[in-house]
């Protein structure tokens, strides 16, 4: 009886160790995907000689990160946002001023949706896009307020 119990415990421990190993592998891939996403999003905003740096992370269904962009025209912020509808999804690069005003909306890629010609019209195409942009603007304002170089 005691031998049987010990064998069961050993079995459970072995399976727990294998599951732990699987979790480590998944975690390693998660880190690799995250660093790749940061690099890809940074390069999406690095235009016209602007210097782009990661300003903060967000726990939002539509965007994961906010970038600070410094160019000849001044300081601005950007976030790569995912917009979804039942007909498809799109990745857009949204640029904001320090006080959260939307400066530009640029289509980076889309799946299965005939999108309007002008990126600004996409907000009407995807339900909830306006709210997502408002949350991003709020996040930009918070980062801008917390950062000492926000006003420069």
């Amino acid at each position, binding site marked *: 009886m005691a031998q049987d119990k010990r064998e069961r415990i050993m079995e459970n421990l072995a399976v727990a160790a294998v599951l732990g190993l699987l*979790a480590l592998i998944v975690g390693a891939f998660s880190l690799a995907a995250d660093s790749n996403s940061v690099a890809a999003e940074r390069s999406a905003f690095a235009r016209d000689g602007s210097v782009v740096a990661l300003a903060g992370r967000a726990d939002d269904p539509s965007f994961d990160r906010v970038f600070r962009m410094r160019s000849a025209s001044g300081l601005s912020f950007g976030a790569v946002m995912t917009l979804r509808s039942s*007909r498809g999804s799109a990745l857009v690069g949204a640029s904001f001023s320090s006080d959260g005003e939307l400066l530009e909306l640029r289509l980076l890629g889309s799946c299965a949706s005939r999108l309007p010609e002008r990126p600004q019209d996409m907000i009407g195409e995807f339900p909830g896009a306006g709210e997502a942009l408002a949350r991003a603007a709020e996040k930009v304002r918070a980062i801008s307020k917390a950062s000492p170089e926000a006003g420069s």
Partner: protein
Amino acid sequence: MSEGKDGFVPNPVLAGLVGICPLIAVSRSLAEATVYGLGAALCSIVLGAVAPPLRSVIADRLQAPAMLALSSALALVYGFLTRIYSPTIAAGLWIYSPLLAVSGLSLSTLRRSSLPGRIGPDGQSRLGAVAFEAVMFLFSAAFIGAAREIVGLGTLTLPVPGPDLPRLYVADFAPLRILVSTSGGFILLGFVIAAYRTLARVSGRKLP
């Protein structure tokens, strides 16, 4: 162990339908459907290769959770690789990407691959049968995705790396937008199954 009592899929019909549901949710375009179908196919093949040796190592009572955990881990890793390959396609797959674990487990031949012996009663390699069915799942997924996108939107989005996916315009307008919605996907799936059964009957196969 009899086939009816083995592991991780309790009911093949229910499992098959559950496996198809996430495919219908994501197969709005050729790009999304192909990437999802490839993930399910790879997941099935890995599980088919791992199931027999796992059976001899792990106790019966732990086989079902072990296979589910392995399938989930494969689905998550594939989801991360999809994000690296194309963030646009990954955004399209969204919360359905982890459901690859279900689609990967739902293939009926995979259940048989967990039985003892590398060769089945029909004389075929069990892993070979899983691989064949996995490839057929991939082709079916790509077909459903392409058909829904062409007939629904008049476009064809190609599954290439990077965020900006090239799109072929087959028509200047969206012929039947309902096909791109999930309900339209199930309508198309019904027609595909009806066509398959008709062809199978015509060719003399016995169907349940």
